[in-house]
């Protein structure tokens, strides 16, 4: 009796899990493995590391990897620094406005990346709203500034896409902070600033970490914003896009996507470690 029950439990498990597992194994894992494998196979069909040695010794391509990571890191740091005070207001100060704040955070997530870049282009065009304010209305400048195709605007647009994720993950950790710890510090005579920097902030470091990795991962793979807003960046996703579109050197594109994949896997690993620590 118990044996048949056990078997049926095992079949049940298999039936429930198998469709999703098989689907992702075939249509998610295999394409990625196949793609990486192609970067290790030379023209003559034998195994080769030539593309990676060429890639990793070429100063241009090393620069591209560095630029990808530095750009994502910059976007991440800016997003987290901006997100923290907003998350703090949302959790601690907003009261009856918290519903409105959550709505305003989620609404931009419903807009397409095309809509946002279109908005940036209109706002920051040579005769756009921002230049009109600066030159005509406020008289701060004599001539309109060139914003489009500057690195600053591209970074601002990336932050705009990613900062809600940072706010939401920091807010969820702030919510879990035991406020008695802060009260304890205050009662014992610590100033509000000291309480924040020595109690609240350290308690939310894990949340900042999770949010930061999330933002970093998405930033690392984004290219639509950079294609449309320019900024002169040369990142891995942009180069893959260009290889696919114009140069059509697919082996090189496979090499670059494998490198991008390795960075993503490293982030995923870090994220899992952080989450596990939070759980413990």
């Amino acid at each position: 009796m118990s044996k048949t029950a056990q078997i049926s439990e095992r079949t049940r498990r298999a039936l429930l899990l198998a469709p999703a597992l098989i689907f992702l194994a075939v249509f998610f894992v295999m394409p990625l493995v196949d793609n990486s494998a192609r970067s290790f196979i030379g023209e003559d069909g034998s195994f080769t590391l030539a593309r990676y040695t060429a890639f990793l010794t070429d100063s241009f391509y090393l620069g591209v990897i560095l630029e990808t990571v530095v750009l994502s890191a910059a976007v991440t740091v800016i997003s987290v620094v901006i997100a923290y005070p907003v998350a703090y207001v949302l959790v601690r100060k907003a009261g009856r406005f918290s519903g409105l704040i959550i709505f305003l955070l989620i609404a931009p997530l419903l807009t397409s990346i095309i809509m946002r870049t279109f908005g940036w282009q209109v706002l920051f065009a040579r005769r756009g709203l921002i230049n009109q304010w600066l030159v005509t209305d406020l008289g701060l400048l004599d001539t309109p500034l060139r914003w489009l195709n500057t690195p600053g605007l591209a970074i601002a647009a990336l932050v705009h896409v990613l900062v809600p994720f940072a706010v939401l993950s920091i807010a969820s950790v702030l919510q879990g902070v035991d406020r008695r710890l802060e009260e304890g510090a205050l009662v014992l005579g610590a100033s509000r600033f000291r309480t924040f920097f020595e109690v609240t902030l350290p308690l939310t470091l894990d949340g900042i970490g999770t949010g930061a990795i999330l933002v970093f991962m998405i930033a690392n793979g984004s290219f639509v914003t950079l294609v449309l807003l320019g900024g002169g960046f040369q990142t891995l996703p942009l180069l893959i896009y260009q290889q696919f579109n114009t140069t059509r050197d697919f082996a090189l594109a496979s090499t670059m996507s494998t490198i991008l994949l390795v960075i993503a896997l490293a982030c995923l690993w870090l994220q899992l470690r952080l989450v596990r620590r939070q759980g413990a």
Partner: protein
Amino acid sequence: MRLTDWALWLFTVAFFIFMILPIAVVVVISFTSAGFAAFPIPGWSLKWFARIFEYEPFIDSLWVSLKLAVVATVASCVLGIPAALYLSRSRSGWATTITTFLLSPLSMPMIVIGFASLFFLSWMGFGISFLALAIVHTVICLPYVIRTVAAVYRAVPPAYEEAAMILGASRFRTFQEVTLPLIRPGIAAGSLFSFLTSFDNLPVSYFFGSAQTNTLPVVMLAYMEHQFDPSIAALSTLQLALAVIALVVADRLYGIEKMTVAT
């Protein structure tokens, strides 16, 4: 109020101006009477919404995008709901690993998924077809359904189902009359996220361009590379309106708090 509180609020208001301004500008421009995209607008008109329906590629691709989002969402539910139900009741470390794997498409760069799938699915004989695109969209939508349904189901006490079974209901009847009604908000939210994710996707769809597979975002991107007129604004506004309506309807039906237990 303390000075720091004032500073915090000021910062928050500035933050939301930064968040909302680029979007609000597009909404306003979609109602412009001018022939070009500039702000402020000289007058109001609906002609750019009419233009959407006159430009055939927009309508064709809108149709492709809608079909695609529906197919990917249904497939994600069929594959994802059973897995989510099993995983949220299992506490072993092994189940955590499986969950991590099933959610991992969310963490991989979309451009790599798109590029790799194009070659692999062509090799498998799917080529650049609606079916191929639907398969890749299901890969990226599936995690949303699994994550949301699992989170909602985890919050349901097992006692409800146990009670039904003790009272003699079969496994199937328990599922149909107890489990399903309880996880419906999760399914609704997961489907909504999945639909919006598919409908909005550009980095994956981009690689599968053909007359049958050009989605709305792909056509919009191509259009923007040559023209900069308010029809893109009108389309974006329409898209945003649809998303907001879907969210409000889901909220009325199930309540936003219930649906966001997951996030």
